[in-house]
Every structure is written in structure tokens, then in C-alpha cells.
């Protein structure tokens, strides 16, 4: 289906839902819930939190359905609610908030330590459940302030400006955090997916030499 056709379909569903058709509302939920769950899971790092976020999002959408303008995109609307609920959960859970700038926020970048091509077989694994879990686990290990920027910018494809506004950061903060996030994820994934014999440290740094041993 083309995007325009999908939008038209969605506008029709929204109109029907506003008119009291539960099945129409349910179809909208089915269309958007999986993506919002994945988003919330990545931002919060917890299954239970992701469930909370998705449920809160659609309950809120239901409550405010009457005020929702049909010409607006339903997906954009619930996406914004979900992002805000997920961030609110993070704020509640922690004293330190990801949106706080500062604390050693300079331009220095982590130097790549592990430099190796990834096994070619990786390309065939990307559809598998185990690979999804591996990506999730590596992302979970990233500290919150970098993880959230990476999720909003690279996975959710929000602009730098939007990401900055959502998190209360400057655009340059967002860019630096995104760069660090990508480099840290790349490092960790290389440790897991890199081709053993070729794993070598960049720039004469052999701190990670122990990782090279005992590889298949």
C-alpha cells in the first residue's frame, strides 16, 4: 500500500473510532503498538516499562480521541505520546536525568579499540530472534544518556533538532552523544561479531588483546 493510501485508510479508521467503532480503534492499536513497544523497550531498557508505556499511550489516545483532529497523522500523535511517557518513566526512576547537559560533555571521542571486519554470516542472521536479542542486550548495556539519543535519532529517525528539543539538550550535545553512542555500540558489536583472526587493536592500543584469545 502506498503511504497516501495508508494515511487515507488511517483517517477513515480514526473517523470510525471517533464515531464509536471499537474495531476501528483496535485496528489502529494493532498497526502502531508493536513499533511503540519496541521504541519504549529500547528507551527504558525494561520489558515491564515498555508495557506500561504502550498501555498508557493508548489509554491516553482513547481518552483524547474526541479532540484528535482527523487530518493529523494518528501514528505521529501516538508516537509523541509514547516518547514522552517513556522519558517520563526514566525521569521518575532516576535522580539524574538524561536531559541534563554537562558532566564531562566535551568533544573528545572514544578511540576505536577493536578493529575487525564482521563475520559475513552476520548478514544471514539479522532476521533471527537471537540476533534481535543480541542487539537489544548490547543496547541495554549502553548508558542511558547515550542510549536515548541513539534510539530517538538513529532508530526512530527523529531529526537532531527534534531530538534536542525532546530531551532539552543542545543540538551539539545531541551530535556528540550520538557519535559516542554509535562508536560504543560498534565496539561492543565488533567484540561479538568480529572475525577472530583479524581482530586487532587500532592505533597500537592493545588493551583489549585478551578479547582476541579463545576465538573460534
Amino acid at each position, binding site marked *: 500500500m502506498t503511504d497516501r493510501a495508508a494515511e487515507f485508510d488511517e483517517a477513515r479508521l480514526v473517523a470510525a473510532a471517533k464515531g*464509536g467503532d*471499537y474495531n476501528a*480503534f*483496535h485496528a489502529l*492499536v494493532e498497526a502502531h*503498538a*508493536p*513499533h511503540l*513497544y*519496541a521504541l519504549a523497550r529500547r528507551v527504558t531498557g525494561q*520489558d515491564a516499562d515498555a*508495557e506500561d508505556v*504502550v*498501555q498508557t499511550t*493508548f*489509554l491516553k489516545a*482513547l*481518552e483524547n*480521541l474526541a479532540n484528535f483532529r482527523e487530518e493529523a497523522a494518528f501514528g505521529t500523535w501516538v508516537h509523541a505520546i509514547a516518547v514522552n511517557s517513556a522519558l517520563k518513566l526514566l525521569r521518575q526512576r532516576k535522580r539524574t536525568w538524561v536531559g541534563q547537559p554537562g558532566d564531562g560533555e566535551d568533544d573528545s*571521542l572514544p*578511540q*576505536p579499540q577493536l*578493529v*575487525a*571486519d*564482521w563475520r559475513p554470516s*552476520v548478514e544471514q542472521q*539479522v532476521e533471527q530472534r537471537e*540476533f*534481535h536479542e543480541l*542487539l537489544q542486550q548490547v*543496547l541495554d548495556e549502553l548508558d542511558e544518556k547515550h542510549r536515548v539519543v*541513539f534510539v530517538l535519532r*538513529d*532508530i526512530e*529517525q527523529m531529526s537532531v533538532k527534534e531530538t534536542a528539543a525532546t530531551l532539552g539538550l543542545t543540538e551539539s550535545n545531541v*551530535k556528540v552523544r*550520538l*557519535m559516542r553512542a*554509535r*562508536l560504543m*555500540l*560498534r565496539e561492543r*558489536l*565488533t567484540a561479538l561479531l568480529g572475525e577472530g583472526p583479524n581482530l586487532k587493536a*587500532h*592505533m597500537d592500543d592493545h588493551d583489549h588483546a585478551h578479547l582476541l584469545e579463545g576465538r573460534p
Partner: protein
Amino acid sequence: MNCDDMLKMINRYVDGEIDPSMCANLERHLAECNPCRVVVDTLRKTVQFYKGDQMTELPIQFKKKLDDALRQKWDQTMGKG
């Protein structure tokens, strides 16, 4: 152009945001620096894999729980209208 310069621009390079003249410089460096080539390639894959890792279904138990909660709320707010 050295490896540090490359690293500073790696995000903009991977995102295709570098202007063509600078881009030629970077590519010259990449042609002769294997470590940087590998870092660029694996960084690009890192972004691609995460971007492509989308969910098409909710965990089954949660789906049931969500449906029940929404149905109940619907009956309270819309059902009587």
C-alpha cells in the same frame, strides 16, 4: 587528513553530510588506511542493523492484557455514547 580527522567526521560521513571536496579527502584516506575503512564499515552496519531491527508483533501475553485494558476503558468512555 589522518585517522583522528577521520574519526571526527565519521558520523557526518556515514550520514552522507560531508560536502564533496572534503569527501574526496576522506575517501583518499580510507583507500590507504585499512583500520579506518573497517571502522567506517562496521559503524555503518551498526546503524543499519539497529534501524532494520523492527518489531511486527507484541509479546503475546501483553497483547491480551492491553486488549483487555483498552476494551474496558472503551466501554467506560465511548461505549455509552
